[in-house]
């Protein structure tokens, strides 16, 4: 779930007609002063961070004049709360509150429908209120084909004990909140407190909205940089990974760092799972073997080799990992040799000096393991492939032995480099990259195996040279699945003239930065 900040959530409420306090968001003390000047003192300053209990953390403060705003804003901006560094604060008018309510909508998985919850007592500790005053709470499921109307809202308000004209205002807020939820594909939307002010208005004082990751594409206006649930801002490497995923919808790719900077404790490994369930099981196995996990990564759902390649390159961008562990369910439906080729290309480029255990059980696992063992056998710390009859526990223990044999040597990423083609070298685009063929080397090749290796018959031989066998537009649209078979064949059994370049935007700069940091200690 992509979380929105309070100020973002409130702007959505306002757009759909739910009253919010006057104010604005500030990134500097001067901005805060400017906003405060446009509303009446006293004002409230609130840090924008995905944490609960901000008041107790000192993240909600009041100011009576411009000097105070400037001083307090200076204290709040840059403040560290949990994993967060505060970059923005919300500056709002301080309202006189008569009563506080709670309004929220979640999705009830058992009923497969949204559930609107209203409590006539709100504020902090809503869970306790719910337990102690069940009569103050009313809930109602929504028929998504019909919607949640004003009268549904009024009925809910009535059931929670609201009387008189207030019913109209509360009912309207509830139906508008559902409108926000539906319009912005929210998985949850919550106003707490929803306040009745002394002058009789119903105003949303705080609001949390999370947006469905799968529907973020429908809402470019939200500017969500990374549609994943994090309790902290995304790391640079996660952003790089997310851009890869966003550009390539074949299969799933997920990358999450458990630690942004892996400590040199000789315990952390790079983790590369396949499928949620298989990954969890495999993580349990590596933890049981005494390792710590530097990152979680998942490439599954029949990903192309190019995606596995990029995932491996990103995992191998983490200094200080001492091993690489890949394992999924063990009985994957997908053809596992694709993943194997992705690993081969990444590992040959990176030549890591740490051991790897890659458990690629499933369809064609024998071929997958053979590919790993054939092409990665000369890597210094060992790369071992396993299949469905080798348990995750066995594989994790095996990695442990290899790491020990390697003396726990920590990983140092290499500077990022890409193949540089000759001027005018024959090339064509694929769905996420480009294939280069040096025809002078084709002339020296006796096997021409790149053509027979390609399952999609993308290439043919013309005058002894490998060229496209189809419309370049078809290839670009995905006819070439980036299975990497032609390149591996050419590099090992041909003349070495075929190169596939699969860019990973931002990785070059990232590696430069971390290598500089390592050098400077």
């Amino acid at each position: 779930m992509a979380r929105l900040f309070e100020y973002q959530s409130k702007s959505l409420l306002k757009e759909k007609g739910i009253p919010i306090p006057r104010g604005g968001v500030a990134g500097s003390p001067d901005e805060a002063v400017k906003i405060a000047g446009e509303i009446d003192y006293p004002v409230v300053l609130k840090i924008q961070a995905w944490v609960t209990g901000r008041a107790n953390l000192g993240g909600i403060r009041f100011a009576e004049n411009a000097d105070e705003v400037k001083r307090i804003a200076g204290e709040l901006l840059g403040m560290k709360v949990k994993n967060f560094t505060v970059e923005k604060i919300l500056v709002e008018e301080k309202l006189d509150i008569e009563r506080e309510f709670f309004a929220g909508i979640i999705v009830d998985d058992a009923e497969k429908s949204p559930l609107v919850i209203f409590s006539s007592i709100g504020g902090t500790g809503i869970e306790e209120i719910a337990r102690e005053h069940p009569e103050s709470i009313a809930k109602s499921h929504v028929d998504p084909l019909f919607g949640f109307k004003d009268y549904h809202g009024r009925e809910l308000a009535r059931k929670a004990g609201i009387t008189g004209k207030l019913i109209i205002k509360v009912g309207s807020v509830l139906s508008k909140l559902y409108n926000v939820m539906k319009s912005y594909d929210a998985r949850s939307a919550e106003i707490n407190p929803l306040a009745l002010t002394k002058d009789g208005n119903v105003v949303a004082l705080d609001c949390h909205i999370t947006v469905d990751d799968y529907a973020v594409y429908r809402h470019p206006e939200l500017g969500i940089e990374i549609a994943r649930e994090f309790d902290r801002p995304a790391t640079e490497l996660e952003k790089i990974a997310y851009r890869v995923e966003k550009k390539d919808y074949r299969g799933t790719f997920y990358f999450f760092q458990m630690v942004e900077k892996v400590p040199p404790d000789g315990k952390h490994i790079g983790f590369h799972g396949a499928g949620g369930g298989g990954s969890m099981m495999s993580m349990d196995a590596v933890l049981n073997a005494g390792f710590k996990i530097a990152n979680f990564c998942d490439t599954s759902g029949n990903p192309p080799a190019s995606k596995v390649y990029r995932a491996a390159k990103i995992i191998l961008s983490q200094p200080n990992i001492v091993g690489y562990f890949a394992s999924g369910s063990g009985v994957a439906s997908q053809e596992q040799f694709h993943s194997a080729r992705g690993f081969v290309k990444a590992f040959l480029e990176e030549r890591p000096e740490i051991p790897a255990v890659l458990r690629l059980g499933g369809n064609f696992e024998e071929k997958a393991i053979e590919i790993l063992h054939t092409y990665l056998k000369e890597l210094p710390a060992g790369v071992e492939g396993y299949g469905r009859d080798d348990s995750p526990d066995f594989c994790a223990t095996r990695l442990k032995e290899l790491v020990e044999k390697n003396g726990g040597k920590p990983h140092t990423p290499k500077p990022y480099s890409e193949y540089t083609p000759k001027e005018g070298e024959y090339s064509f685009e694929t769905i996420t990259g480009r294939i280069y063929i040096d025809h002078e080397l084709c002339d020296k090749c006796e096997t021409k195996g790149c053509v027979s290796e390609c399952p999609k018959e993308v290439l043919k031989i013309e005058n002894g040279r490998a060229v496209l066998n189809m419309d370049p537009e078809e290839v670009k649209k995905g006819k070439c699945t980036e299975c990497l078979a032609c390149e591996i064949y050419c590099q090992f059994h041909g003349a070495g003239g075929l190169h596939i370049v699969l860019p990973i935007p931002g990785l070059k700069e990232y590696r430069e930065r971390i290598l500089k940091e390592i050098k400077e200690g």
Partner: protein
Amino acid sequence: MSILIDGKTRVLVQGITGREGMTRTKLMKEYGTNVVAGVTPGKGGQEVHGVPVYNTVKEAIEHEGQIDAACVFVPAPLVKDAAFEAIEAGIKFLVLVPDRVPLHDTLEIAAFAKKMGARFLGPNTLGILSPGKAVLGMIGGRAQSAREWFRPGPVGVTSRSGGITSAISYYITKAGFGESTIVHVGGDAVVGLPHPEIVKLFQEDPETEVIVMFGEIGTTQEERVAELIEKGEVTKPVIAFIGGKAAKSGTRFSHAGAIVEGGRGTHESKVNRLKEAGAYVVDSFMEIPEAVKKVLKG
């Protein structure tokens, strides 16, 4: 017997001309599934692995007669439209394979299916397989593997993880048993036929003697299975494993469903509730075949 499908089920493939649609049609046909028609709007008149392609679901029904199940392979943003089309045309069982279907789309599909008396698996599912009879979706990947990995037998398998669905079943086969039906309920937070629904179907199925369930953190599915056992609605033995012990609260894995919300949904809550109810909860995935053996052989 098997649940939801059998060798006679007449199947329609929506999105049959796409990358996944074509590949999986081949798997299904080779395994023995009765695939009678495909739909891709604008590509009517073509054939995919011998299956006639139509422009609309209703056109397919006009030409081929009754359709019992639709297997959907269209891109995620188009799933809602495809599912509505199939449900409105009177198809009563759907398998929604794609990942990343927007949640509110799933909610609308669920509401419409309920109204029309239809049921669906997924979204984000590998599908369903009854050994020796039929497969809908992509379990097994290719027919030859599916035949080697899964055998007919008394174990009903239901899982929230696609890969694990195959893995559990493979290890059960390897231990000398077989499966009545293998179901991947789907990895999303809201799915059409969650664990409790599937477990109830296994309860009614005379061929199923024991139910194996792979649960995960997040959602209330496993807790609701515990309730069914407590209420006596499920009396067949249930062997359960809950994945995600290593997951910290709030840490999410690829499955949208694996979100820890409140008290329910945690690893601890699920394990405790199932144990209290009398299910056999195993601590390690690899203990499942042994547990099956104990239950079946007394």
